[in-house]
């Protein structure tokens, strides 16, 4: 039986009820969210449930939405089932004041550096990570540069009208 987005959604809802939400499909990929504390349960279910079999972690990254108060930082997992050739996107949101997320390194070795990178750029604290330290930036850095509070250019520049060049 070919695995479909509808089936995955039914399976998830059957297992987690209202703990998983915000289902949507864009560009053919099923996306959904869950509460931050359930991330490992969901990932493990997707990995171990034989009819789902999402055993490949394609990508893990962070996103910062400064306007979503209480859910400013988001971790996005892209998972892939090679046999059925289907991808899904799963995300969790945490407040910037307490960005604690359980690590996925027990399930996927590949999550190790991707989580370190996410920590490095967004300051998301992966609980249980074996070696959570900066990876691309220098160790002495004391801020998390991909957060939106750090603009790319000096905002006090007056010789250039930002309205004309993209985001103002």
């Amino acid at each position, binding site marked *: 039986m070919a695995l479909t987005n509808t089936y995955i959604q039914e399976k998830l809802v059957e297992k987690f009820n209202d703990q998983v939400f915000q289902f949507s499909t*864009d*560009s053919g*990929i099923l*996306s959904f969210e869950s509460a931050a504390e359930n991330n490992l349960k969901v990932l493990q279910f997707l990995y171990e449930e034989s009819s789902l079999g999402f*055993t*490949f*972690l*394609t*990508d893990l*990254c962070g*996103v*910062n939405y400064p306007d979503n108060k209480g859910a400013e930082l988001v971790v*996005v997992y*892209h998972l892939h089932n*090679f046999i059925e*050739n289907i*991808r899904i*996107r799963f995300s969790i949101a945490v407040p910037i004041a307490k960005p604690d997320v359980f690590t996925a390194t027990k399930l*996927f*070795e*590949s999550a*190790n*550096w*991707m989580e370190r*990178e996410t920590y490095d*750029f967004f300051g998301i604290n992966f609980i249980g990570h074996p070696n959570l330290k*900066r*990876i*691309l*930036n*220098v160790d002495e850095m004391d801020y998390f*540069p*991909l957060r939106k509070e750090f603009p*790319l*250019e000096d905002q006090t520049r007056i010789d250039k009208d930002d309205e*004309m*060049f*993209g*985001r103002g």
Partner: protein
Amino acid sequence: MEQHSHITLPKGSIEKTTTTLNIGPTHPATHGVFQNIMEVDGERVVSTEQTVGYIHRAFEKLAERRPLYQITPITDRLNYCSSPINNMGWHITCERFLKIDLPKRVDYLRVIIMELSRISDHLICNSIVGVDTGAYTGFLYVMQYRELIYEIYEEVCGSRLTTNIGRIGGFERNFTNTAFTKLEKFLNEYPGVLREFEKLFTRNRIFMERTQGTGGISAARAMNYGFTGPNLRAAGVDYDVRVQQPYSSYQDFDFKVPVGTTGDNYDRFLVRNAEMWESISIIKQAYQKIQEFKGADAEIYHADVPEYYLPKKEDVYTKMEALIWHFKIIMGEIDLPKGQIYSAVEGGNGELGFYLISDGGRTPFRLHFRRPCFIYYQAFEELIKGGMLSDAVVTLSSLNLIAGELDA
């Protein structure tokens, strides 16, 4: 033993039974700027810690302030041995996101360029594996033929290494006859060279003994470590983005996905060589399909998307509409639709993914590059632990690590 009271050694350094060895950041064995801090016991590797980030250039942050077309030159600098694949991967992501359909001829032209760059990528990697096992000849020999590929790039886009080739919607200009002549020259000369290259290595006793059984990984571990591309296929998993999620009309081509069994250095070498043969066959098929376009169809080299594809210069000077689009594109004044997309292509060393989030502004809200070698380099310690130091060097080069892609 004489006492040197003025020398203070770090605590524990006398009792230590292993030696700490730094390989890198700049070292002939790393082929790029990254460091390995190895603990060695004699010539055996006890453990290693990989340090990356020496050439981190904050591409993801930069991309948040640039309109789409200005991000293409950033992607050049990821895997710079196969820049055109990165460029095309980015264009394809944008086109999927903006729902732009491409004419078949553009797809086929892209396939030619992408497969050429796959050959140039594998060519470097495999010949460097040769260099690290002590055979310089193969490397110097095939370099000449990479030059032929670079000349084709030059004819199409004007540059060689960091190509910035193509635009959203197609190519900046049609391929000239010279480009096709150069392609024919390459297709005629290269198979003989590759055959000779294989003759130098594939059944070479020294090479086989150096590479077989070193740096091996099982299929399950490789998947857990997020391996993709030739490295995963060498472990026996036939995952290829070109087949699984075809882009740029790859479904129109007939090609095999070579796989190995043990995932060791030798299998990786064989898989890459076999892929080069497949690439040659794909290029031939694509070239044949292109020749079938006649008349006006043979002049198509871009899709009709005035919002994203720059108009011709003579039109900009004479036509109002072209002038407006030119201005709007150059100034980055076009609002993107809201949404997000993950789109991947089969890069030189694995699945190169682009995760684009747009909030409706003129630049991406967030752009994340899934860089294959950043993800699989984590497995390096597991691959070399307990082995000889000299095998670690070969493993390092056979993984096809590109510093530009590691660090983004």
